[in-house]
């Protein structure tokens, strides 16, 4: 049996904004190639956790190790290995979709940049509109461009905050399939979502977070059996409110 190395290891993570504790000592780990979902209501600490893991925010306590690198000491190394898609991200409005993907690819290995852009264009599936200015895109087109941007760099760890936010059913479905395919090719995925069906479909394991604490963690099927629930939504309501 192959030993799975933890791609992400979070131990007693604490993050404060002034006097408010946004994250209160959470711990979890994600195996390589796994899709891990962080589920919780608004203000539970999901986005803060993802921002910390994306090297955007410093931590007030605990430790975070990503792909063998200590977050507090080697943030620059971690940035070479991860890709982060914020929930309400935007793109440079004066650039075309293609120019935006090119701009991002230029931060990586120059030899791989053309292939990255080709992959990004393929993921976005924007057709001829890829050469139009970003400020002419609809919300759905913009989100596809950003998902393409996040996944085209072949990250070891993709951190996706509400990846299907604002997308219609068809576009959301396409993105979910894309995330699955990406994970199969070896990328570890950490995502947050409000959409319980999406979580059930996508994630190998989930952690339910409420008021800055992880209240339950495990495989969706196991958790549904444990709480005798028909879906993750029911599990979530029982763990948070009962």
């Amino acid at each position, binding site marked *: 049996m192959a030993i799975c190395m933890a791609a992400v290891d979070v131990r007693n993570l604490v993050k404060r*904004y*002034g006097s408010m504790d946004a994250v209160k000592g959470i711990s979890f780990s994600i195996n390589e190639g796994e899709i891990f979902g962080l589920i919780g209501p608004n203000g539970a600490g999901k986005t803060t956790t993802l*921002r910390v893991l*994306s*090297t*955007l*925010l*410093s931590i*007030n306590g605990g430790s975070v190790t990503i792909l063998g690198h200590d977050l507090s000491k080697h943030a*620059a190394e971690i*940035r*070479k290995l*991860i*890709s*982060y898609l*914020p929930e*309400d*991200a*935007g*793109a*440079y*409005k004066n650039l075309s979709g293609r120019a935006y993907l090119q701009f*991002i690819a230029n*931060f*990586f290995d120059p030899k791989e940049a053309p292939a990255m852009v080709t992959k990004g264009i393929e993921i976005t599936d924007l057709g001829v509109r890829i050469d139009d200015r970003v400020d002419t895109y609809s919300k759905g087109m913009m989100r596809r461009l*950003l998902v393409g*941007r996040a996944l085209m760099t072949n990250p070891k760890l993709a951190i996706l905050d509400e990846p299907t936010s604002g997308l219609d059913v068809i576009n959301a479905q396409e993105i979910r399939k894309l995330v699955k395919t990406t994970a199969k090719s070896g990328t570890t995925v950490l995502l947050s979502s409000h959409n319980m069906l999406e979580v059930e479909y996508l994630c190998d394991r989930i952690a339910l977070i409420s008021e800055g604490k992880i209240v339950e963690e495990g495989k969706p099927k196991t958790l549904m059996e444990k709480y005798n629930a028909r879906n993750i939504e029911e599990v979530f309501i029982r763990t948070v409110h009962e």
Partner: protein
Amino acid sequence: MSGLGNITKKEIRELLTPATFVPIILVALIFATMGNSIQGIQEQATEPPTIGIINEDNSSFGAIASTLLHTHAKSVYNSTSIDDLQNGLQTVKERNGVAVIIIPRNFTERIMQEQPGIFQVYWIMKGAGLMDTISSSAVESLIAFINMNISKELIEQNSTVNASFVLSPIQRSETTYFKNREFIGISPNTISGMLSSQSLLIPIVMMMIIIMAGGIVITSMALEKENKTLETLLTLPVKRTSIVSGKIIAAAFIGLILAVIYMIGMQFYFSGFQFSTGVNLGTYGLVLTTGDFLWIGMSLFLALIAGLSLCMLLGTFAKNYKSAQTLTFPITMLAMIPMFITMFADFDTLPLALKIFTFAIPFSHPMMAPRALLFHDYTMVIGGIIYVAIFALVTISIVVWVFKTDRLLTGTTKFKWLKGLKRRRF
């Protein structure tokens, strides 16, 4: 609550933010400081000018001139021999005076022969700003007043006197001492006028570059936040220093292009109504060499980098495009203040507080450099360049530090040392 009241209350609450008031309060404080300093200079100017008088002419017109000079000016040196000129100049200089006036031996005699009596005026010029020449203007007015009184006297004595002579019975022979140089035949006002026209372009161009390029940097930071692109940028494998430097270099490049376009326009504007004073600065050795232009270029470039790094720091406070517009205001003021100061007064003649304030503004240095270089004051120019370089380095380091903290995204910064201090205190 009525609809109007409800909307008004909401709008006031939105507008009553530190971002709205802090820049205006700062500007008000700057204006108050400037006003106090200028008031001090004005009060100084309303006092009678301090002069030295050497009267070699004991006859009637010499006596009239001497009496009027004593009445309307503060005489700190009196003599009856031109041999005492150097002593007179030394005393007047020490007493912060403006000129030594010599009434020569043949003054009355020449006037009686219907030839203009010559006042020999030795000016001690302290600065080349508009405010610096107030005292010399007062002496010029006093000489005009003496001229008028002698005219009256001549008419009373002899009604058939030559009309064209009687209007100007006095002429001036002038020598000006300024920054250890002797300018024979010209007055402080002429020198000030020449230097102002020579060094007006750089302050205006500097001010315009800073306003334009500074606006670009602040707006760029605000748009990164407003368009939600900053978070993505900060998670990419790029150094914070590169992000900061890249934004500054791009803005400096655009700023310089704008400056060139602006300078071309300004050159045409100035050439449209420039008039010659008939005096060539080169005659007095006041010429900028190629090396001097390199110093000015270096000073200008560093001030631009310092200014843009300051804008970048302000830009980290900008939440959106609207707040960015407010934040460009203090930078605009910081660029305009040294321009007006250098126009109105010489750095050397400023009160100490204003001198420190002017030196502290990085944009002052390229504005003051051309005049300083004309008089070979390299200490001032090189000192300024070193100061501006340090200012730019420190500001860039602070910006990079801000980029490494949470402040950019959350608006708060974690000060470990402050926390430790609070723990110890309580």
